[in-house]
């Protein structure tokens, strides 16, 4: 685990530092926090330990009391004694839950480390329970365990579980566009308006706001990834014949423009029309960013691995705000999906995949970047050492995609720097 690996791969001629060791990251269960807000008819039942329940309530903060649509079936000693009991117990818990919550239309049984290690077959449980409760409730399963998933990969696993139950797009149907990755409603609506103005008629979203309302998929589906952490989902979509539209991720002026243009090209939209449609948004974002650029230009930034958003965000901060990238760490580097993003990285950018947190912190202390993007377990300790930080989770929970959020995204990085300079005590 602790062996220091020399740079062992080259991506587009770029060395990648690969490390194994202690990782200071969330597990995939955390995805439930935003997924349950996005899919209004879905309930997430984690089958796990008290640790899992504790994680969810720690991550959800006070949201836990806003009638959440998630819970944990906490395994106790008697559940570990024999598999048969565990399945019976699961039936009992699910039946009780569905009686109490008749509004649930989709139930996700979410696997955890303990349930995966004892090989509790949740897929089978989902099938068995589904047979009983369909058509009223659809029961699906995915794993959000830490041994298999890091933070946002929980969303990837969840969406990949939805792909097989998407309706089939008829073979002769015209091309349809699919936006993949959960976005805040306000951002999703902005994108849908832009696609409508471009004349791309039918646009589906995965996840849909109701999990029982899934868009169709087939050989004539063209999908755009809105998020960089959706490798499994992309594979599942490809398995159903869909094809990915290669583009930058829609962060900032250029990322959003590229993303929209790539879709327009794929759908044969006239270039002049495309430029006309995106011009107002581009201009608004450009003006807004020009106000923030002076605060960020020339500032050195390091990213610790968290969500896989690191590479596209680094590209945006470097290209559009003039920041200098020191280290860009990501929990997992999806070469194909990020190839275009990596093209603009300068030769001195240190790209790392995986984590050995102690060694990475040694590098942060040696580099002393102006701002370090990291998790909440590290942020205050680094501040105490005199390093300015930006906590990473906010980048997953805030609206940051698209033209009209480009400046909000820059502000998330500018604010800690401004605050550092403001405080006199």
């Amino acid at each position: 685990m602790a062996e220091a690996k020399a740079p062992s791969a080259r991506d587009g001629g770029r060395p990648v530092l690969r490390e194994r060791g202690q990782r200071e990251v969330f597990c995939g269960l955390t995805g439930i926090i935003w997924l349950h807000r996005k899919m209004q008819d879905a309930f997430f039942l984690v089958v796990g330990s008290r640790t899992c329940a504790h994680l969810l309530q720690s991550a959800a903060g006070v949201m836990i009391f806003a009638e959440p649509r998630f819970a944990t079936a906490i395994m106790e000693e008697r559940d570990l004694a024999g598999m048969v009991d565990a399945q019976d117990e699961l039936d009992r818990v699910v039946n009780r839950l569905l009686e109490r919550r008749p509004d649930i239309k989709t139930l996700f049984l979410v696997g955890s480390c303990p349930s995966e290690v004892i090989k509790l077959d949740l897929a089978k449980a989902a099938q068995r329970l589904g047979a009983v409760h369909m058509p009223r409730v659809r029961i699906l399963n995915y794993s959000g365990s830490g041994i298999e998933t890091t933070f946002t990969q929980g969303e990837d696993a969840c969406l990949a579980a939805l792909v097989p139950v998407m309706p089939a797009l008829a073979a002769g149907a015209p091309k349809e566009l699919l936006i993949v990755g959960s976005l805040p409603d306000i951002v999703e609506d902005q994108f849908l308006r832009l696609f409508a103005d471009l004349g791309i008629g039918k646009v589906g979203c995965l996840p849909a706001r109701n999990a029982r309302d899934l868009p169709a998929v087939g050989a004539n589906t063209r999908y755009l990834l809105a998020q960089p952490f959706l490798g499994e989902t992309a594979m599942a979509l490809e398995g159903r014949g869909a094809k990915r539209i290669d583009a930058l991720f829609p962060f900032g002026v250029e990322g959003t423009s590229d993303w929209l243009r790539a879709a327009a090209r794929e759908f044969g939209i006239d270039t002049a029309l495309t430029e006309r449609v995106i011009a107002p948004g581009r201009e608004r974002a450009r003006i807004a960013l020009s106000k923030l650029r002076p605060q960020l230009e020339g500032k050195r930034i390091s990213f610790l691995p968290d969500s896989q958003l690191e590479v596209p965000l680094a590209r945006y901060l470097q290209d559009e705000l003039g920041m200098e990238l020191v280290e860009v760490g990501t929990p997992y580097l999806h070469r194909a999906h990020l190839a275009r993003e990596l093209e603009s990285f300068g030769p001195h950018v240190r790209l790392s995949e995986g984590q050995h947190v102690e060694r990475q912190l040694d590098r942060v202390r040696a580099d002393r970047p102006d701002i370090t993007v990291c998790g909440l377990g590290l942020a205050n300790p680094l501040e105490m050492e005199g390093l300015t930080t930006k906590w990473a989770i906010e980048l997953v929970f805030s609206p940051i995609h698209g033209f009209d959020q480009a400046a909000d995204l820059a502000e998330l990085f500018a604010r800690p720097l401004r605050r550092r300079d403001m405080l006199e005590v």
Partner: protein
Amino acid sequence: MQLAVWTYEGPPHVGAMRVATAMEKLHYVLHAPQGDTYADLLFTMIERRGKRPPVTYTTFEARDLGKDTAQIFQDAAREAVTRFNPQAIIVGASCTAELIQDDPAGLAEAMGLPVPAIPLELPSYQRKENWGAAETFYQIVRQLADKSVVRAPREGRPARANILGPTALGFRHRDDLVEIRKILDALGVEVNLVAPLGATPEDIARIGAADFNIVLYPEIADEAARWLERTFAQPAVRTVPIGVGATRSFIADVAELAGADPTPALGDTSSRMPWWSRSVDSTYLTGKRVFIFGDATHAVAAARIAREELGFEVCGLGCYAREFARDVRAEAARCGVEPLITDDHLAVEDAIAAAAPELVLGTQMERHIAKRLGIPCAVISAPVHVQDFPARHSPQMGFEGANVIFDTWVHPLVMGLEEHLLTMFREDFEFSDEAGASHHAAHSPRKAAVPVVSEAPVTDIPAPVAETAVEGGTLWTAEAERELKKIPFFVRGKARRNTENFAAAEGRARIDLETLYDAKAHYAR
């Protein structure tokens, strides 16, 4: 399997983290999968610590299972000892590692590390956070205490005490300790050691040098104190000094063990709570019905303060940990209520709704339940959120703690004079139900408290007590309903319930004006 949205306690290894983080120069090597580092946030964010907890997580992944997880553990342990240079390490497993059976204890022992490696057996599927903290502290004390320590005769030297129990993430532990030190100073008692908070493993070796122990938080320190009693013949003070009366008893107990005069400590002039409680503005507190829930230590202390020092009526009392339920049962008997021993927040919510208290004292969870039911609330026990790790000095213990408690508990209630005015001008158009106490937003708006049907929670939330539509609304005549509306909102719920109970007991099929006032007379205090 237990269906839970909220858990009052984390798993036992979080208790072990609380002990490790409290101490200095101790490191915890935790066999755990990726993701269990979430617990670091509790310390860095909620408690706002400026240092990472001293925990190395082995971070095994699915691909490691069944082959080299044991090797991963040993590498992590070796690296942690080299990097952090601790005086001792504790080793153990989180819930997932418990299932893969790598035996951290045996693995650490086989390594011949240069420092003591203390193994922890924390059964994650039976036990919880506080138990984990207690067990960890006990194991550390048992392994590190130097048993050859012999105390010098007492003549000609001050008495020495250990203060046991304060941890990281403890509710007000930082400030309680300040108050306890003040009391010991006044009594001329020397502090031999505070542990776990601030102690190093080398400090723990000297634990036998004290004449007696002070068990501040039984949930955490009781087990270690019992062992110390057997091993070093150290008696323990187990009175928890929360409240004026309990603080006085505590002072008397410490003075007795130390052979000191309690007078200087008892004469602490900063004790304002007794006068505040006797002053006439507090008259309106008399008989206010209060529901109390938390850990056993804080719940029992709160019940005594409520009864004996503020003149409240305790209408519900409970705790979430079975290990200490006995004290809660005894105190509940004194209060004349059924004890509620449960870690199921839904059961607590039902009990609060049924008791219809005027004030709830509890944890972060009860704060939310009370908000939903529109009942004033104050926090008395962990689990708590970031605002209950305040910047200002806010102890619960000692005389200053009693001052803090008076302010904290009374603050959410409508002030005495205001309550009087509201009663006088009860039909005034400006005093609507929406207006809670004027000095802050004590209540959430009542209309919003009714859950939206499409968002029905896991449990059926009881309709807010204070403002529910009448069950079988035909029971009340329109005239009686109008009269009920004239009763101030903060007692209306109780009036409604009392009247309906009275009508049922009397076998009256309708509630008219007559019944309303008959009931009022029947329940007159």
